[in-house]
């Protein structure tokens, strides 16, 4: 069986599994990293949103064989480690997670790791473009929340952006 090596949440891992198994299952079923959730398996619901080399992506749509040994995958579990300790908040978390807590966004919580990872990537993107998060940016987010927490998600993204 092929050996798959990559970096996840700052740690290099090696897994024996076929090339075509999607990264989501490698993370969840083989490595026990369960923050990224399954909601569709076809890159629609975005519940598994994580980062690869700092950009948002959906591991349900990436065969593990396409990930290189130096690719850095970050899941919600590794998000606090993406900022300096001084930037972390009261709970020692990433500023976006802290905003999520202060706004009490989650209801069932299932989609929230993906929402937060998508929000962080969005804020980084608009900052790189030298602007702030707009209504249109928020309208374009595809992550679904069946509890309908959208109102607080929008508030928290703006709040989190101001802290990042």
């Amino acid at each position, binding site marked *: 069986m092929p050996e798959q090596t990559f970096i996840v949440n700052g740690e290099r891992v090696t897994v024996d*599994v076929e090339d*075509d*198994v999607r*990264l*989501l*299952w490698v993370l*969840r*079923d083989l490595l*026990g990293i*369960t*923050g*990224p*959730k*399954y*909601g*569709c*398996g*076809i*890159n*629609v*619901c975005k519940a598994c949103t994580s980062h*690869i080399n700092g*950009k*948002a*992506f959906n591991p*349900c*749509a*990436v065969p593990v064989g*396409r990930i290189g040994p130096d690719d850095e995958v970050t899941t919600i*579990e590794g998000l*606090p480690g993406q900022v300096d300790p001084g930037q972390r908040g009261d709970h020692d978390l990433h500023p976006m*997670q802290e905003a*999520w*807590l202060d706004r*009490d966004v*989650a*209801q*069932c*919580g*299932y989609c929230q790791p993906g929402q*937060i990872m998508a929000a962080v*990537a*969005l804020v980084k*993107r608009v900052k790189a473009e030298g602007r702030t998060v707009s*209504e249109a940016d*928020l*309208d374009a*987010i*595809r*992550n*679904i*929340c*069946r*509890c*309908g927490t*959208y*109102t*607080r*998600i*929008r508030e928290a993204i703006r709040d989190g952006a101001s802290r990042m």
Partner: protein
Amino acid sequence: MLGGATLVAAADLALDPTPAGAEIPTVPQVPELYDLNDMLTDAARPTANLITVTINEDGTASFELPRMEVGQGITTSTAMLIAEELDLPVEKVAVTLAPARPELLFNQLTGGSNTTISTYTPIRVAAAVARAALLEAAAIVLGDTIGGLVAKGGVITAPSGASVTYGELAVRAAGSAGSRSVEVELKAESDFAVVGTPTNRVDALAAVTGAKDFTTDLDVPDALPTMVCRAPTLNGTPVSVRNQAQVEAMPGVTHVAQVSTGVAVRAATFGQCIDAVRALDVAWKDGPVAGESDETILRKVRAAQLPMPALPSTPLTQTVSGDFTFWFRSNSAMDTNSAIADVRPDRATIWSGLKSPIVAQQQIALRLGMRPDQVKVNVVTAGGSFGRRLFFDAALEAAEISQAMGAPVRLMWHRADDARVGRGHPLGTCRVQATVLGDNVLAFNQSLTCVETDFRHGLGEIITAAAADLPAGVGNLGFAETIFALTQEVPYDFGAVVQTLVETDDRFNTGSMRNIYSPDVRVASELVVDRLAAKMRMDPYQFRRKFQRNPRLLKVLDTVAQAGEWGRSMPAGTAQGIAIHKEYKGVSACLVEIDTRPATTGRRIRDAVTGPRVTRVTFAIDVGLAINPRGLEAQMQGGINDGIALALTSSLHLRDGHFLEASWDNYFYTRQWNTPPDVRVIVVPSEETVPGGAGEAGVAASFAAVACAYARATGTMPTEFPINHRQLSFEPKPFVPPVPQSPTNGLDLTS
């Protein structure tokens, strides 16, 4: 109270909550005298005291809640109730979910938004008993009388300044307690310091760090990923597998087994399960609705409609009517149907998100050929329910599969199965006729006819037990008729009011969907109410003010009209809509603004439905005593998004014996591009001293207000919901194989 290693204090319900319905309106409808919440609470009452609050040696309190957390926030509100009575910080109270406890009989069903209504007093009593025992033990330790002691923050202090912690007292209090009856006095509402204070969820930290475990996240040894290959028609059944050996030889696959619902595969990863499901070549027997479509089912429902009751007819009376169709809708949650099952020859252990775990345990035992006490059923927090988890389809299926394979399984339904085969809200029609004479409504008749709503999850037992006490003879009606009669009312003075239900066709996978009958019934009512207002040349808000018959309703109605600026000038193609609702011991009102102008409806977003946009929502609720206003606000925000979806975008399409929707880009629940940019929820201070229900209370008024706004913006009253149903907005995915393959281009789509 029981002795033990640590203090265990049980609720003793010598004090009974005040019976509901003390005030009887002149022409009361059934729910005004006795509603579904009364029935559920009464059914739970005989065993309501079989709960315990435990004080641990570390000074924390713990409690196993015999209800299920699905996102509605009951673990938080329960922790608040216990913290209040124990004078402990909320974070020192750990609330977990109790496994199936058959001795609780009718007291372990999470439904009808009834958790807080039925457990408010019992949980407080259990906590107060523990507090009394701690004070008693502290009096001995501190050498003072109980009356002189002050409990605060988990520490009991004597006038001398000497103090002792709950943790230090836990063992001592248990030792002195024994098993005996005690009387306790509950904290007065005026002394509440925790209850009523906006509080963040107790599980929020776990949720935002990925540490919150759902069923498929649980670490159960050897419970490998398992999926089921299902038939190309709804509820079709497998006849034979033509390539079992070939699929068994696929990478990662450990087992292939034909079961009653399909062909199950177990593998090292879910990805390999998907591959195996797609590779299976199965001969199927058609399901019971093979060949049927939306239109054929609607015709059957129309044929089952009973004649509307005769209305008074004189030369001066006028009739206002409406006839509405509500298509099938899905209550699929983000967290698909799932369960872990470890079935051995002599016992079984199940983990799943279950709102009726006792019935689940009994049915699983039956399926496995075991006694109920051989089946341990653990209740796991779920990623949403919306009524879906009243049933235990995945738990039953996982048990059958584990038994067939002789191995533990971690069963997860694919999204496509969860949408197509999972339960939903039945298709139905709702007809309304009202008789107007001058400035009065003489009569209001409403008749709902629909595909059967499945209640075979144990509510039946509750009804059997409670039926004898039901007023108005509803005890003799069927389950559905009982639920309908105990929940539906027309909150206006409209003379003779008659509301009836006819159900037909039991071939679909249905169940309660958030707020059950009320969303459709209230939409039909409120649209006709707007017509009545027009007939009398009255403003919709003023009409509702005049005809409502409940002072709490009037207050929330006035609140939204004022805060939402009812009647403000709006451009053509945009409009406001207003609606009210009364249920779960509370009242609500919703005012929305909608934009139906071409620039909005013509927005193009890939694989999406845009259409009209609700731009602003003002929602007011008087829920009675609001335990956690922040959680209540969250539930209303969710209900608003549900109401928008029901009105504008979300339905299932039945074609040739199966539902087409297999993705969140097929079933159009509200998305960010649909959600209102401006939402304001107002928790109205209540005169009531007891809590009402929150989980479902936001849907009906929101749905109705959106429908009314759409009618006013377009000048045409919609008669079908959602309004976009007849336009299929996606390319249906194949039925063979039953689940789509995962894409491989994810690295091209980073952002």
